[in-house]
């Protein structure tokens, strides 16, 4: 175990020495990864901010339960009790047919309610419950709608979630775009890592050959290059993270100025700790993979192993 730790510690040291020996080429490789990765990362950050903005500022979608015209007071009471027991519902209120007619009267242009009723012949409006669900996801609202439609004396259920669905679709499209970019980025990261390691192997060909002759195992020869590739991905991700953070700081200053004109506060936040960690692990992993493919292919090409 001690020997294993020593070997890895020595590899760490060797890898850093190699980076220090050629800092500019390493920095250029890092900046290629960072700049390329910056774009999908920034897009993802904006998407997350947009999502949270919608969640905090948008009106809560409501479900309207219209009762059948023959619904009596005891039916209304039974439905009210059922709504109170439902755990999926945040709050609700009852709108009687008279209240509904009054609110229409305000919009109709008739001088009195009796005039409106005389024109209509009778009050045609049903009793209704207006319900707010605990979860406002379109999927949940649709599920509740179907549930309510099965209830007795409920003739029609209306959900005003079309806008929520549209926004969710737009966010899905954004997330899909981020994932597409991420897949492309993974390929790019593997390619950069592969090519960098290929050049490293060509530079250290004599050293590889000698260590092989002196009894080095495949793992011993591979290890420093795998570290190199992993660090390339990891530091590339950290640099991209910093670039996005700097960009957000600059944008937030301008956004704060703009927001004062409209008397509200808004600021863009960076990735959460978990997301940041995921990004680093993702990039380090693909850097490692590129290095592994390169080492396997190019060291075997030296016809040593």
């Amino acid at each position, binding site marked *: 175990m001690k020997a294993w730790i020593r070997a890895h510690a020595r590899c760490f040291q060797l890898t850093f020495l190699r980076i220090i020996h050629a800092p500019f080429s390493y920095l250029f490789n890092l900046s290629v990864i960072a700049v390329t990765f910056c774009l999908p990362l920034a897009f993802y950050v904006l998407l997350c901010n947009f999502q949270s903005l919608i969640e905090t500022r948008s009106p809560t979608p409501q479900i309207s339960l219209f009762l059948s015209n023959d619904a009596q007071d005891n039916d209304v009471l039974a439905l009210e009790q059922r709504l109170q027991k439902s755990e999926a519902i945040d709050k609700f209120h009852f709108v009687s047919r008279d209240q509904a007619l009054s609110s229409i009267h305000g919009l109709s242009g008739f001088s009195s309610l009796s005039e409106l009723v005389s024109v209509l012949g009778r009050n045609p409006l049903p009793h209704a419950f207006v319900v707010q669900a605990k979860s406002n996801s379109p999927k949940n609202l649709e599920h509740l709608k179907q549930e309510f439609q099965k209830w007795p004396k409920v003739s029609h259920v209306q959900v005003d979630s079309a806008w929520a669905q549209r926004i969710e679709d737009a966010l899905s499209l954004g997330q899909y775009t981020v994932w597409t970019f991420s897949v492309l980025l993974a390929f790019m990261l593997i390619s950069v890592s592969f090519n960098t390691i290929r050049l490293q192997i060509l530079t250290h060909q*004599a050293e590889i050959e000698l260590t092989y*002759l002196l*009894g*080095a195992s495949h793992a011993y020869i591979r290890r420093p290059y795998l570290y190199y590739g992993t660090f390339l991905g990891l530091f590339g991700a950290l640099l991209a993270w910093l670039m996005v953070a700097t960009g957000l700081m600059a944008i937030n200053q301008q956004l704060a100025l703009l927001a004062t004109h409209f008397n509200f506060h808004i600021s863009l936040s960076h990735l959460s700790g978990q997301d940041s960690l995921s990004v680093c692990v993702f990039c380090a992993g693909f850097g490692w993979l590129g290095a592994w493919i390169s080492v396997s292919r190019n060291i075997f090409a030296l016809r040593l192993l």
Partner: protein
Amino acid sequence: MIVINNVTKRYPDGFTALSNIHLTVESGEKVCITGHSGAGKSTLLKIIAGISPPTSGSVVINNTSLNPHNSSLKALWRRQFGLMFEDHKLLFDRSVFHNVLLPLEIIGAHSFKQCAQKVRAALDKVGLAAFEKSLPATLSGGEQQRLCMARALVHNPRILLIDEPTANLDADYALQISDLLLGFNQLGVTLLIATHDQALISRLNPRCVGLLQGHILP
């Protein structure tokens, strides 16, 4: 004891470098493999060291034979030798100290402090203790050869496989090298040397095995 059983080496282009070689080397013995360029001396050393696999036949050291298909076992096999190459194979971007440290790093059995002690002892044996921080490029040909010897000896191998130790060296340096080799042999190290340097052979007074076009001369 090294036992080479019926070893043949044929390259993919059809050239036969070694043909049905039988050879036994006792522990602590000094053996010079002689012959002209292309006779198969270096090929034989490479086969013994597990660097190049034989086309047929086997190499047995202390009742253990080399499995040419298992890379991990091959790596372990090579660690039991001290290897000196004709072209030195020094790392010119590393100091003398780090060149000698390399075999110990590969074996990985010692702490850095222990390794450093062993490296300094090896450099002291070959008279390069004062040069540990120098780069190999600043050393003379003889010093570079001695550096190779320090690297070959640092992990205390029982067998030294040496390819043309005095090639490209003038008489004085060659004498230093042969004296060092004699000294190690007196400590019990088995020497297997591929050379056509008659001066070295006469100074070492070894058992000579002649090779001609891949065959051992009677």
